[in-house]
């Protein structure tokens, strides 16, 4: 029972940071959703805002870490070109997928979409975290901003969700090992 360096990084990128992102999204979304003056007392708002700032900041930081590790650590192993004459593509996931018509679409559609759409998540999540920190308790009075943040937060989650889903399916078809 052991993991290679590549498997460990793939695990950190996909499962570790991915799970943390999901957790942070849930906490942040619920916090933003219920941040209304009529729902909470001033004391409640004061108590909730630091926690909301932490959830949204964690989501932003985790989103950046996920795309950076994915792009600069795991992705080069995925797209490595096998030496001339190679017939065993086990350690070359991209080539392995493209070698069979039944799996080629995992790369052509899945990976091609995943590697780009994932980068949208940190951009949106950063704006959400900044706005929460910038406004603090005043966010309860900015219904316009809060609603827009919920949309951005959801879009960030959708982008990360698409990337994560394809990441899991592609790893199942051709793991980085």
């Amino acid at each position: 029972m052991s993991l290679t360096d590549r498997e460990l990084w793939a695990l950190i990128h996909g499962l570790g940071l991915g799970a943390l992102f999901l957790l942070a999204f849930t906490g942040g979304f619920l916090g933003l959703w219920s941040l209304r003056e009529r729902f909470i007392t001033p004391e409640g708002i004061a108590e909730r805002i630091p926690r909301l700032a932490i959830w949204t900041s964690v989501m932003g930081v985790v989103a950046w870490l996920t795309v950076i590790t994915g792009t600069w650590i795991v992705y080069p192993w995925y797209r490595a070109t096998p030496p001339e004459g190679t017939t065993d593509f086990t350690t070359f996931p991209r080539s392995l997928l493209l070698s069979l018509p039944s799996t080629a679409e995992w790369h052509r559609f899945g990976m091609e979409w995943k590697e780009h759409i994932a980068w949208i998540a940190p951009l949106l999540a950063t704006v959400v975290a900044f706005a929460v920190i910038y406004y603090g308790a005043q966010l309860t009075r900015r219904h316009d901003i809060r609603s827009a943040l919920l949309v951005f937060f959801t879009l960030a989650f959708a982008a990360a969700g698409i990337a994560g889903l394809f990441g899991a399916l592609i790893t199942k078809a051709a793991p980085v090992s």
Partner: protein
Amino acid sequence: MVTETTEPITAVAPEATTSSRNGPVAVIEPEEAMTGPEIATKPNGPVAAGFIAAGVGTLVIGLGVVLNEASATIKEAIGFDFNAFLRFDANYGLGQGVGPLSGKVTLAVIAFAATWLVLGYVWRGREVPFQRVFRTSLALIGLGFLMTFPPFFELFAAG
């Protein structure tokens, strides 16, 4: 697009702006208690700048994908090789083996940060029409999303 802090503005809630000891503030009635007392909040300029910046960053990702896909055609037409240009790993030592993705995402992050810095500076201390800003950012994000979608960007592939 920008409303000066001394002019009244209209958004979801009736708003006005004024100054305080700590700088300009937006004055907004509470969200769901429109008859309540007016309460000051910070002006939305820096946050609005972030929304536009995220839209621009997303659009740049999408543009990078489409330009890379069409690089053979563009090279034939004007002699510029986008695919080679976007290889920031090889060109600037930004990683190894990442390929054109390194350029696409680096340019997107630079565009995101630069847009936020510039607009944030221009809109500092100001209350801008947020719904218009938000709609613009969604349009930019929508375009960016579309351009990263393989069936769309493959339309620009050579051959």
